[in-house]
């Protein structure tokens, strides 16, 4: 699955995107966050304020409980500040 990051989430992780083979047990957005946090300090730092991180599946907002099955792209980013 393609994972993309924006703003300070991107900066903390140190990359804008990556392609990951996720284990079958990783089913929801929350599961993906748990999987990422276990990968290293940069991820743990990026998701330390976990409640404020927003997610999108295939470019549409989702709650962290959403299932990722069938989606091609998962995005993580901070609360939006456009306008």
């Amino acid at each position, binding site marked *: 699955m393609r994972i993309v990051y*924006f*703003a300070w989430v991107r900066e903390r992780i140190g990359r804008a995107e990556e392609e990951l083979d996720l284990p079958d047990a990783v089913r929801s957005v929350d599961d993906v966050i748990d999987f990422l946090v276990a990968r290293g300090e940069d991820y743990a730092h990026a998701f330390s304020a976990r409640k404020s991180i927003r997610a999108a599946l295939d*470019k*549409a907002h989702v709650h962290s409980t959403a299932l990722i099955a069938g989606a091609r792209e998962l*995005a993580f980013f901070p609360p939006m500040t*456009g*306008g």
Partner: protein
Amino acid sequence: MVEACPITISVAPGDFDVAADVAALSKGRLDIGAIASFVGLCRDEQGQLSALELEHYPGMAEAELSRIAADATQRWPLMGIVIRHRYGVMQPGERIVAVICAASHRGAALAATDFIMDFLKSRAPFWKKEHKSQGCAQDWVDAREADAAALKRWHEGGVGQK
């Protein structure tokens, strides 16, 4: 047949021409009685900002703005919507965003413009980073509670009708 509510969405680095958009919305249509517009500028409150950098999520930014515009057409009898949002590096005083709504009457045009801006600020994937004039400090702008609270009033009954 005239399209009921043509919608223009633009996410691009360059500046835009609000007067041209206003003129284009009503061109060839005599049923439009009101056009409301909002223009957001890059603000420097204390002379400390050297530049504002706007990051966006390509593809989702356009998709989310389209969803917000479509929601507005469900609430008000609109006759045209233009939403333009820039990204990249901007100087204080430059235009960042424009929302323009056309309708028969001002109530719908003004309310829809307000509605679109409220949802744009909290749901369109853009992020501002401030570059300060002193030193090389850079800071991501925090989301405002007031922006999230502004959405709630649209969820309460009675706002907007078709």
